[in-house]
């Protein structure tokens, strides 16, 4: 059985290329048909927000790629409830559907995977 990977994406989409490079790890897993889920944590939750205007920063839009993740075989998207509330973001502001997890559920999630990759 293939080992499962949880990718923890913690960088805001406007904080340079880190968020895009995290996403590339997920897409690569999809290409090889490997089990990978993503947890959006800390500033990473900003990647899921609706109505972003990356063009103003002369950047590419990540949202379209994120929405395409299920087509690439990415198993599940999770988002930390705590990270959202810390930033005053409510779940209805998210453009990308992700499962909300409280702190205890995040801890449980981490234990379910063979490997963690944090970017």
């Amino acid at each position, binding site marked *: 059985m*293939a*080992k499962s*990977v949880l990718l923890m994406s*913690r*960088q805001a989409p406007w904080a340079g*290329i*880190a968020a895009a*490079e995290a996403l*590339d*790890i997920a897409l*690569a*897993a999809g*290409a*090889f048909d*490997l089990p990978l889920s993503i947890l959006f944590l*800390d*500033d*990473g939750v900003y990647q899921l927000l609706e109505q972003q205007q990356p063009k103003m920063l002369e950047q590419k839009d990540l949202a379209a790629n994120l929405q395409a993740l299920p087509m690439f075989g990415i198993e599940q998207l999770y988002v930390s409830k705590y990270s959202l509330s810390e930033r005053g973001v409510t779940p209805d502001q998210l453009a990308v559907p992700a499962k909300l997890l409280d702190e205890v559920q995040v801890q449980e999630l981490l234990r379910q995977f*063979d*490997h*963690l*990759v*944090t*970017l």
Partner: protein
Amino acid sequence: MGDALANLLNFEKFILMVAMRFVISVLSSSTSPATRRALRFAQALLAQKHEIVRVFFYQDGVLSAANNLVVAQDQEDIARQWQDFIRAYDIDAVVCIAAALRRGVLDHVEATRYQRQGGNLAEGYQLSGLGQLHDALQRADRHISFGGA
């Protein structure tokens, strides 16, 4: 004599039991303390008979794979130390090609392809794709990353 041999065999068995296969990801540049810690961790793994399946250089970590960094004499040259370590122990060292190209780390093939002056990828390193990270993860017991968010 028989006891000594038995002890030795037990010891070997013990090593086999606890030895694990590690993947190390280096995500920060060579000036970051995390990149130094990654190297010391890798050295400690070998000292304790663990196996390093692969060291994967991604994000700014690719900068440690450049052979043209110049560091002042009174400062530690961690990129060079990484390069010496990788050659000395014949470590499988893969540098993400996309991350490397956008940060100016190229081997001779890529330098020719994109008409850049000469390659600067250190000897012992290989440019390849993110699939190599996943391949290593599939073969490893543990993944430890340094310098991530």
